[in-house]
């Protein structure tokens, strides 16, 4: 049995310790918001937070998670979509097919947590690992800045 703390809830799963966290989340815990895109840490679709740090769940064996707290896109704000990144994404109509967007949102959420006012260069560095085949990059760039702004306004208030 492996214990995982996912979105604030303790979960027990009986699996091969080598199983990547991605498949444990999707197939066993039914948290399908986290996506499979490449399986080799190239695309970012599987991005989740481990103790607040963005991680590629496709290359992280469940056994390596240990006691770290996992947050998936479902745990960002639930269905309400009230996280600043989600708000900015909705406001600027970022999504197209949407398949990469769970990963984009998680990468952006981690970025603005660490950097309250990311520059273009910061965004390039933090978001370059997240592929979007629909090419929503210009809107992601604008929305990361807008999300940081929403967050700053929220923190200030």
């Amino acid at each position, binding site marked *: 049995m492996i214990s995982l703390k996912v979105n604030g809830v303790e979960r027990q799963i009986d*699996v*091969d310790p080598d*199983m*990547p966290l991605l*498949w444990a989340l999707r*197939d*066993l815990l*039914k*948290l*399908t*918001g986290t*996506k*499979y*895109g*490449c*399986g*080799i840490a*190239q*695309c970012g*679709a599987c991005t989740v937070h481990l103790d607040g740090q963005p991680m590629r769940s496709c290359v992280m064996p469940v056994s390596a998670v240990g006691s770290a707290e996992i947050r*998936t*896109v*479902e745990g*960002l*704000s639930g*269905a*309400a*979509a009230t996280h600043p*990144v*989600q708000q900015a*994404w*909705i406001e600027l*109509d*970022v*999504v*197209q*097919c*949407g*398949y*990469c*967007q*769970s990963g984009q949102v998680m990468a952006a959420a981690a970025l603005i947590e660490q950097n309250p006012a990311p520059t273009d260069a910061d*965004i*390039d*560095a933090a*978001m*370059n*690992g*997240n*592929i*979007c*085949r*629909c*090419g*929503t*990059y*210009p*809107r*992601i*760039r604008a929305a990361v800045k807008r999300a940081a702004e929403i967050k700053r306004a929220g923190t200030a208030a």
Partner: protein
Amino acid sequence: MSADGSTPAIGRRHFLIGAGVVAGGLAAGTLLRPYLVGGRGGAAPKEFKPHAFLRIADDDTVTVIIGKSEMGQGVYTGLPMILAEELDFDPQRLKVEIAPVDPVFNHPFLPAQFTGGSMSTNTTYESLRHVGAMARSMLVTAAAARWGVDASTLRTEAGKVIDTAGRELRYGELAESAAALPLPAKETIRLKDPKTFSYIGKPQKRLDSRVKVTGEAVFGIDVDLPGMLMATVARAPVFGASVKSFDDTRARSVPGVVDIKQVPSGVAVIAEHTWAALKGREALSVEWDDADGKKLSTEALRSEWQALAAKPGIVGQNIGDTAKALASGSRRIEVEYELPYLAHACMEPMNATALVKDDDCDLWLGTQSQSQDAQFVAAALGIDPKNVRVHTTFLGGGFGRRASADSDFAVEAAHVAKGVGKPVKVVWTREDDMRRGYYRPYSISKVRAAIGADGLPSAFHQVIVGKPVLANTAMGKMAVSKEGLDPSSVEGTANMAYPIPNLRVEVHNTTEAVPILWWRSVGHSINGFVANGVIDELAALAKRDPYEYRQAMLADKPRYRAVLDAAAELAGWGQPLPAGRHRGIALQESFGSIVAQVAEVSVTGKEVRVHRVSCTVDCGIAVNPDQVVAQMESAINYGLCAVLESEITIRDGVAVQGNFDSYPVLRMAAAPQIDVRIVNSDGPIGGIGEPGTPPIAPAVCGAIFAATSKRIRRLPLSASLS
């Protein structure tokens, strides 16, 4: 926000309950459950259902049912908007439901439910307006009866009928009485004067954003059904090869593996979860019958095709006398263009879930071609197509790949699930997806062209070599002439916007074992590059500016001129640029829309950086202008991948590239600033998903020429500049 002001109007269930799930007679309690997140409790409301596209409930819920697949292009927002316009209802309050497969949702030109060819808006515009207007008129009739007044004295606004005294009735309050009315005759239904539109033509936020930023949206790969098993398939790495024998002893001992069986496409490993299916597949040893296929390589094709391009082919266009004009032209060029195989590389790899029981099958998948999938699956299983129910999910990208030539991923899932008695989801890894093919065709063109005394093109003669797209699809092959001309092979030059007095386009159809398919903008992404590239070469030959040269060519085509001029203006063509930056320009008409782009590029050694793209488009009517902009951004970035680094090469019968490490695509740091301006004329509605792709490659290469005097005739640049 919804009527109660609390939550956005669309929940997961509204996207994912295909009415077909219910109609299919399956136990609603089990199969529906996974999708009923946030579902409405209590008694079912009374509903007014004037048409398969629309339901109005007595609680004021207005649901639009959309038969087109949402793959990012915004059909779940743009199409409902059209109906809402005539209905007089705020689109943001609509609920959108994915349609079941039913002939009422068929494409008007094809006897099939199909999403592709950038035709979703222009082929449904009139019918959606009509349904909205019909429903509105019935609600007005119901209100008139209730108040005992003449219907002509009533007006509607944002979901209400209002009389001259200011009394109001909400649509929900009228739903039951409207439902009792007979449908009015089509001729009696009046459509709005477009000048009075409240929603069409004004930006409307996407209705599917919330479910796509919370992880709620269900794509094919996310489908979850009771008792479902997962599967992977070991497919032949060599194109055209088949299974000779296999040994599954080790694979069967992998924990979680449930069964292993041969299917027409390879050997399937069925397991309790994806990881076991992957480990099981790794433990398989399969011997392939692949001796013939191993001889195939891009290198070998290249020399064969170069020779073929020197010979006459099937004539696809012949205007004037090209041979004579070439002989008498004042100056000539003879050049060769080469474009690689390209994978669609949808962000969501292919997958499909099937449940097969006796003579009956349910399919859950993201697809662009529901009807064809049902037919091919029925044929594969030897059952009646009526007994195949297709449940459409969101599509994690399509770009043509999910309108498969032969419904490959749906059919394979049906074969894998046959005899299992439980739903089986076949998941493709990225490598499976990229190496299995269905590529944009590899293409080599020889072009001879000349300019006349006035410096403008006098002759253009192209011989194209490549595998024809439509001819290799079940749906498109009827478009091929008896001489073997596939219109998609020559589109983009045979019908180019630039008038050329002597134009001849010929084609050689090849038959290599590599599966090819329509790839966003089809022939235009290949021939648009050749056409605009050659125009640039002729402009240089005439020592003229590429923009001014195009202006001169398009002097008598005001609609095209307007798009071209607007792009030049948006880009500041002719105005100074920061040191090291250069511009290139291109214009291509495809799918009924005209797009011009100016790329601003710098070149440092072998490194090409695209800083900015200015894009203008005339698509006749832009229903949701911000999504037209979004599609231009998307199409440009998609096309840029093909310019910069993406290519599939074949060696020893195998695709060399298998994942994003070897098939690089555009990423954030390389993504340019994109400025889009819509310059609509009053032309007919054009497509918008694809037309933004063709101009970007020639615009970038024109800029590289301005920077380096090097002419790029082969893509990607990583192959050309190395």
